């Protein structure tokens, strides 16, 4: 009997497990390990602070998300021993595997920044990358008396790299609707040299921030926070005063990745960019936020990667050569406030471009520009996630990025 063990049952691990359950030979076992009893739909975390989604509606019992053929071990992975092909669990048990899939995601580490997670944490300093943080922030925003609201990305990579922009757009709309926008100063302090990493999208998003009177403090690498005085400081000694600080702290992979010697300096697993095999191993695949790949840490990416990993797990079990099918494809809706959103679509080689994104039934969506249909697309994604993506049903979105509808002339102009 062959054993497939999947570490983490979030977006990526669940999708891979459920897909595999339909395709493996009888007698092959599929085990997922995850200590959490509930599955959190993380894209909803952006809505919780603004009262647009209730905290309890973001969770579903994990058991119901896994197909009958998948065994769930509710425990925390302590360590992986690749030599003896064993996973050591916190509860003391051991699992041996023939093929391992690491899908343990990325997590915030506020303790990495001096002064961030101290007595002012969840009083004047908040995160929204955890459900607890997002819920606490929702109260803080409702009670905010006005003043300087600063959003800071401590360091990259972060998951959902558009989430900081969404937060700012939604905050602008939130205070505007309350008729209090003039009492609130919005600042975005980012290590990037502009609104986004890629030039065309950065220009477009930068203009949208400007139009909403949101100030960008670029190339700002946060060194410390003085919670008492309400000051955020950078390594090059710039200081930003705040009344309310919303922090997106340093992200790292799961602890066991580093403990097992499988990670880079942030605990992300060095991974082959097309086959998703862990570098230096022939029996470990990596999927979702746990990789070190140069694409977004996003649910859409986890989904596109999952298809390739499922195919490659099956091929590896049969000793066949791997499919080098992943192209870095990412596809994200960006909420822009007041019931609108935009869509960006890109891969390793092609940066986000304006144009239209054709999709049967629901589309076309507008790329890099706002529309109502995009917002509905974002809301529909919630349904698609629980009912199609996680259960491993096929959805009509091509795995590889397509240039159809995109204004590629902009690329030639940029290159010229």
């Amino acid at each position, binding site marked *: 009997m062959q054993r497939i063990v999947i570490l983490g049952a979030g977006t990526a691990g669940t999708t891979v497990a459920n897909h595999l359950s339909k395709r493996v030979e009888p007698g092959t076992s599929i085990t997922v390990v995850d200590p959490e009893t509930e599955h959190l739909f993380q894209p909803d975390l952006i809505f919780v602070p603004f009262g647009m989604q209730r905290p309890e509606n973001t969770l579903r019992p994990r058991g119901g998300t896994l197909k009958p053929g998948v065994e769930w071990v509710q425990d925390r992975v302590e360590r992986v021993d690749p030599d003896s092909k064993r996973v050591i669990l916190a509860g003391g048990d051991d699992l041996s595997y023939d093929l391992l899939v690491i899908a343990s995601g990325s997590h915030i580490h506020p303790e990495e920044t001096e002064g961030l997670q101290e007595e002012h944490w969840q009083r004047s300093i908040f995160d929204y990358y955890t459900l607890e943080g997002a819920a606490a922030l929702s109260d803080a925003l409702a009670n905010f008396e006005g003043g300087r609201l600063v959003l800071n990305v401590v*360091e*990259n*990579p*972060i998951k959902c*790299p558009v989430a900081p922009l969404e937060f700012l757009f939604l905050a602008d709309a939130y205070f505007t609707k309350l008729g209090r926008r003039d009492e609130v100063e919005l600042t975005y302090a980012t290590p*990037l*040299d502009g609104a986004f*990493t*890629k030039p065309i999208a950065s220009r477009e998003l930068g203009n949208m921030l400007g139009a909403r009177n949101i100030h960008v403090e670029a*190339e700002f*690498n946060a*060194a410390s926070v003085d919670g008492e005085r309400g000051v955020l400081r950078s*390594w*090059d000694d710039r200081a930003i005063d705040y009344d309310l600080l919303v922090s997106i702290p340093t992200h790292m992979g799961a602890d066991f990745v580093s403990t097992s010697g499988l990670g*880079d*300096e*942030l605990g992300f697993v060095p991974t082959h960019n097309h086959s998703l095999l862990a570098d230096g191993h022939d029996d470990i695949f990596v999927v979702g936020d746990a990789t070190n790949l*140069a*694409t*977004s840490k996003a649910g859409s990416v986890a989904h596109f990667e999952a298809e390739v990993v499922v195919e490659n797990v099956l091929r590896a079990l049969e000793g066949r050569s791997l499919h080098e099918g992943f192209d870095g494809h*990412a596809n994200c809706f960006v909420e822009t406030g007041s019931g609108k959103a935009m869509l960006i679509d*890109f891969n390793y080689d092609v940066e986000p471009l304006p144009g239209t994104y054709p999709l049967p039934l629901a589309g076309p969506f507008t790329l890099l520009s706002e529309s109502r249909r995009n917002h509905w697309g974002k809301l529909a994604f919630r349904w698609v996630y629980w009912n199609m993506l996680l259960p491993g049903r096929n959805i009509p979105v091509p795995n590889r990025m397509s240039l159809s509808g995109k204004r590629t002339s902009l690329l030639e102009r940029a290159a010229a």
Partner: protein
Amino acid sequence: MTVQELNLQLNDEGFLVDGDQWSPEAAEALAEAEGISLNDKHWNVITFCREDAAQQGTPPGLRRISKLSGVNMKELYQLFPKGPGKLAAKISGLPKPQGCI
């Protein structure tokens, strides 16, 4: 020697177009152009960046440099003011470290 005298080809952002043009002399010229005069600490960082990039195939990011080169974050900002990640790569003759997406 200056960037011009060494005939170094730079891109828009001042990075070497051809990494093979790098030499310790080129590093001094590139640093000079940024208003930096190199000391031993700078050289520790440059050596680390070049060795690491050769092994990893990509230039190290700032966190990696501060964690593995023996020069901490505070010092990195003193040695390479403003953007140590970008500047260290530039002076080490490496491409711009990829912004994460």
